[in-house]
């Protein structure tokens, strides 16, 4: 199963994500989920960034919150809505939104 998980919250997502298994797991940070990609807590990056190599963050939602694409952790690929559509149709079989 190829699974893309939309993480739209900054917190309250770890328990569910930890239990999700997939041959190819992508994490797409959208809405307040983008803080995982941009913000360190007590100097520590989000542990979600270690969950998979396939990490994406939506540029529109980063900029909406007053941050810049350059603020994003190097492990995360910044994408726009068009890229997300491509990911959904070309890279993953199933989607989850948590």
């Amino acid at each position, binding site marked *: 199963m190829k699974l893309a998980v939309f993480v739209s919250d900054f917190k309250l997502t770890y328990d569910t994500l930890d239990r999700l298994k997939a041959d190819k797991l992508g994490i797409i940070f959208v809405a*307040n989920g983008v803080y995982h990609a941009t*913000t360190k807590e007590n100097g520590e990056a989000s542990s979600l960034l270690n969950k998979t190599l396939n990490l994406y963050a939506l540029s529109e939602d980063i*900029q909406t*919150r*007053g941050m810049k694409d350059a603020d994003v952790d190097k492990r995360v690929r910044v994408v726009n809505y068009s890229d997300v559509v491509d990911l959904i149709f070309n890279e993953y079989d199933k989607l989850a939104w948590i």
Partner: protein
Amino acid sequence: MGDVKLAFVVQKPQYKGETSRLAITHAIAYQTVEILLEDGDTVTPTLCFVGEGVLGLQKGQKAMDLYEVTSTETHLKNCLLVDLDVLVCKEDLAKYGISEDMMPDAEDMGADKKIKVAPFSEIQKAMEDAKHILFF
């Protein structure tokens, strides 16, 4: 009744849900309440940001450009314009690496009031002084 103090406490980030924004717009609305009060009665709100709530305070928000919704930054500026006390938790700003100069002011709109970075103890005091505490 005298002066009724209200503490609006924002503990969630902005945009995904409506509630954290409602805290700001409700706090601003304190001015309209005056028409319902007796002479000499006042309502004084204090808007406080704690925990993840401080994440919504960065300036340069492009919400209008990208989603055609009013940005939290604009609402905050309006708060300052109507002389609302806005307290932001110093410890939580440090926790998320947000510096004071990353937050907006409303000087361009003519406001003298500024966001106040305050230790949690001061926010605690504002809550203790308030007749009603509203968490968002």
